[in-house]
């Protein structure tokens, strides 16, 4: 079985989500990675089992990246293409599936069982075990879900790759400014501290940010407080906001409506802090504290600092 791994990089190194996808490929068979633009050494790919890297030009849009990846799949005779189910991965994977006439299994949440892949459906309320029915398959991995192989000392060779890519059709007018500062973007964050209406007003978020800073966590919020402008849109997690999958989700002053749960039910561990013992969120929580957030949260921050 031969596999192509579409790899995204940051600062010349493969992103963690891309390394997870590459590791999956390596567990299935010989894996050739495809990168766009400059990398440092082998971008960390040899260590997860990639043997060769095909390096294409940088500054490509999603349709050009799809051509790059598909051309690599054709050249290598690959049966499977893997990549992370992140912003760019989603954009590229769908296009590659069409180009290769391949089925797409999007966002797997565990290591596959033979040819059966598992992914979340119904906004995390259920799982689907899925098989491909085509000769080739595109599989994308949910960030922070399938783990990574133990790193080895191996390194991958890099060679240039320049197939026909067509013209980019989307012009960037204003570049993105990171909206989570130096914290991981929410869809990839491993630690998240979130708060809602229980905080009573936007001026009270200082203690949430202190807790997040202490943990190195990204901040999130419930829909009502983003709708009324207490917190920025990009922090809203839930059915109509963002779905996240952290190792730890701390929810403060959030009651736990179904729509909010839909965005956070894949978290490995959920901690709920709420003064209402009947808050529905406690039913979805692993750990909970019934108490006044304004007293509990600063004490919790101190306790984390003491670690």
């Amino acid at each position, binding site marked *: 079985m031969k596999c192509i791994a579409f790899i*995204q990089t940051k600062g010349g190194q493969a992103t963690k989500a891309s390394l997870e996808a590459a590791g999956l490929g390596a567990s299935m068979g010989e894996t050739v990675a495809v990168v766009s633009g400059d990398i440092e050494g082998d971008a960390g790919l040899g260590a997860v089992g990639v043997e060769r890297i095909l390096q294409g030009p940088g500054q490509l849009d*999603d*349709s050009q990246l*799809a051509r790059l990846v598909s051309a690599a799949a054709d050249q290598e005779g690959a049966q499977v293409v893997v990549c992370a*189910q992140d*912003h760019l991965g*989603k*954009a590229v994977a*769908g*296009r590659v*599936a*069409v180009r290769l*006439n391949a089925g*797409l299994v*999007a966002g797997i949440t565990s290591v596959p069982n033979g040819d*059966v892949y598992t992914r979340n459906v*119904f*906004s*995390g*309320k*259920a*799982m*689907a*075990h*899925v*098989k*491909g*029915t085509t000769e080739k*398959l595109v599989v994308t991995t949910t960030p922070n879900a399938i783990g990574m192989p133990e790193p080895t000392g191996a390194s991958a060779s890099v060679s240039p790759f320049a197939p026909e890519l067509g013209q980019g*059709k*989307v012009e*960037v*007018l204003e*570049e*993105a*400014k*990171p909206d*989570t500062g130096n914290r991981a973007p929410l869809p990839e964050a491993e630690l998240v501290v979130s708060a809602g209406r229980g905080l009573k007003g936007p001026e009270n978020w200082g203690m949430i940010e202190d807790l997040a800073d202490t943990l190195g966590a990204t901040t999130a919020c419930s829909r009502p407080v983003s709708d009324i402008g207490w917190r920025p*849109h*990009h922090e809203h997690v839930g*059915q*109509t906001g963002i*779905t996240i999958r952290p*190792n*730890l989700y701390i929810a403060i002053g959030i009651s736990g409506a179904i729509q909010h749960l*839909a965005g956070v039910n894949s978290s490995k561990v959920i901690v709920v802090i709420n003064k209402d013992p009947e808050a529905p969120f*406690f*039913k*979805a*929580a*692993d*750990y*909970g*504290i*019934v108490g006044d957030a304004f007293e509990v949260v600063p004490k*919790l921050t101190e*306790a*984390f600092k*003491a*670690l």
Partner: protein
Amino acid sequence: MEFLVCISKAPDTTTRIAFTEGDTRFNEEGVQFIVNPYDEWYALVRALELVESQGGKVVIASVGGADCDPILRKALAIGAHEAVRIDAHPEDAGQVAAELAHYAKDKGFDAILCGKETIDHNSSAVPAMMAEHLDMPCIALATSLNYEGDQAVVTRETANGVEKVGVKGPFVLSAAKGMAEQRIPNMRGIMAARSKPLQVVSAQGASAGTAIDRFALPEEKAGVKLIDADNPSELVQLLREEAKVI
């Protein structure tokens, strides 16, 4: 301006999910269906706003059987001008995208708007797949759409934050929160929807690239472990030693 808005039928967010036929099919009995919220609140409403200010029409399309007709009428009630149902059971993103792209080809739409994902399948794949079939740009996770001269100006979410892009010519867009606000249809809209055109067209017979082996429900959580509010360091210990997440 002419926009195509692609919508799908989804179970209401409070539905208790259950399966049937040996866990190979979603059990639709007793389920309330809605228009997928991202399609309705964001894609459809923005298309209507643009057409209200610049003239033109909004066409709705969906892949489905007759059980889809009520949600097509809902979209018409909100303000769409025409609806098209591609008569096929939706199987997976690949098949749905191929059918929609086949319908949309050569119809001259200024843009094709979708929601960013469906709340039942969650693949986020159809817009990118349609764009590839139609050889168009795809702007995903779009939070605003405006026209300036001959260019569409779109803000979209990326891994690095919100970016502003420009595109000329037709494109596919997937809409996220921020694009528009939900509209509730009024009585006049609901009445008007009854006589707006709802055309059923044959599918071209695209095949799915994946198949469900079976569905499963997640394991029940063990039940919350409560920690005393005066003793938060106990929680910290548990998170480190028991849960091992810090």
